[in-house]
């Protein structure tokens, strides 16, 4: 009961904040709405009992990524006239209609029984312990590749940020 209530509320909030993110002209406001969108997604995840994932979601997105985002947006400090630039009405229509049509086609064509939720719940990644076990078992190679990827990204960012050449 409480869970369903939260589920509906969080999903509505997620849609609303996503729309607001896209439509805001002020980048700071857009960023804040993006943050609230991510938080509502985290709530959505936690209603599926994936608490670990939801906490990680908040930690990574609002705690780290979005803060850096905000930082950059604040430091750039865009001028009013730069913000005034706008898409033409045709482009706006295109950008709204294209995703909507994709969603309508997919969602309209699928029957609810097609979506195989039973297999999703068999994942066993629900608890923290199972998630970590899966990382070192089924997704061992993926985990290792991610670590190599992070080293690479560090090399790249140092290379780009290095002052002395």
């Amino acid at each position, binding site marked *: *009961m*409480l869970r369903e209530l939260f589920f509906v509320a969080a999903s509505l909030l997620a849609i609303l904040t996503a729309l607001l993110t896209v439509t805001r002209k002020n980048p*700071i406001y857009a960023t*804040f709405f993006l*943050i609230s969108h991510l*938080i509502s997604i985290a709530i959505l995840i936690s209603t599926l009992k994936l*608490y*670990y994932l939801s*906490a*990680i979601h*908040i*930690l990574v997105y*609002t*705690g*780290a990524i*979005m*803060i*850096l985002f*905000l*930082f950059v947006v*604040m*430091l750039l400090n865009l001028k009013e006239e730069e913000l005034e630039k706008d898409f033409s009405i045709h482009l706006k229509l295109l950008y709204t209609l294209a995703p909507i049509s994709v969603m309508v086609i997919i969602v309209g064509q699928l029957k609810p029984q097609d979506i195989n939720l039973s297999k999703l719940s068999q994942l066993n990644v629900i*608890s*923290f312990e199972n998630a970590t076990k899966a990382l070192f078992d089924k997704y061992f190679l993926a985990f290792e590749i991610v670590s190599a990827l992070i080293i690479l990204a560090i090399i790249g960012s140092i290379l780009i940020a290095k002052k002395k050449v």
Partner: protein
Amino acid sequence: MKEFIEHLYNELEFLEGLPFIIPFIIGSFILAFIIINFIAVFAGVCTYIERKVAARIQARVGPYMVGPHGILQWLADALKLLFKEDTVPEKADKLLFKLAPFIVFAGSFACWVALPLAPAFSPARLNIGILYIIAFGSSVILGILMAGWASSSKWALFGAMRSAAQIVSYEVPTGLTILAMLLITGTLDMHNTIAQINLDGTISGGQSQGLPFPLNYFSTNADNFSAGMFSWYIFRYPPFTFIAFIIIYICALAETNRVPFDIPEAESELVSGYHTEYSGMRFSFFFLSEYANMFVFSAIITTLFLGGWLPPFNITGSLLAPACGIILYMLVKGKTTDPANRFIAFCTGAGIGIFLGVLSGDKNYWFADYLGIQSLRFIEGLFWFFTKSFGLVILMMWLRWTIPRYRVDQLMELCWKKLTPLAFINLFCIGILEWLYK
């Protein structure tokens, strides 16, 4: 918390027809109300203590006029803040400016949900407790950035930027140290962290005792009370766990913007940082959240290192400690007039008393065991948890008035060049020891 309400719901007959959700929501509100008020009173008392500590260190008297020894000063301050005019700067971004204090406060308030306040009691028992606290604790930065930007004042913006940079940076060594401790505890659940300590100091899952309700509620997982202070995680792998404790304590100072890391609100440079433009109640929300944050960090450290609600010494020790302390105090009293020396003498005596208590091999730890009243466990656990956490908070205040402020670059250097590598090495060593001895 939920279990407790469930018990009540099953026991009390007049709740029969109601769906469970209603008493649950009411119970949650009551608890939230209690905690908010606790934070408010706690912050108030903290300001008083802080001013007194400061006065002591600077050889002043401190607040003296309101109440005996100025003890009601914090109440007067709170009243003043309540009645002050709430100003919003002309050029400020009104919505964000008004919203920011509440987000900051919500971030630190949300952390209280997962704290293990007493045996088997926390507002909500989460199996990802510590992760949840780190996650929501980091959302405080959001409110700070919001406040700094919305004020459209350069002091506020600089303060917010510094603060965000500082908190994000210091989360790295904090996270690594917590990770190292998680290698030992093996659980994210803050309750299990304490409850799994066995009588002999080994770690396993806790057991509940077959007592009737509500006694069993307060005494589940409480059978490890007599484990003693050497079963705490700080004594698990001595040099490394000590280092971990020091690292995380330094990081806690930095993350709560306390001196020596209070550059975001450095008065001499930035007036008062991100809350420069705030006044009245909105200002006091920043204030509350700062003290709430201090307590939350101290509580995390208490849980991970200092055994949470476990009492540190047995009944013999707790009788001998004040006795030895008073004896030594008496001996020194005639020889010196400096109260600091007397205090040190008392502490030394108390330490000797505790040591004698541990030597005596007494297996009775504090009142519950001594008196045989299991339901006292709850109060006893609450007492010890708050004593330890509060002790760490007082230590933070003490440090504030003894150490000069760092510069921005020094602060970052300390974090990235010293603490982070040290935390990595520490993590590695603890991992190896855990692998060897488990």
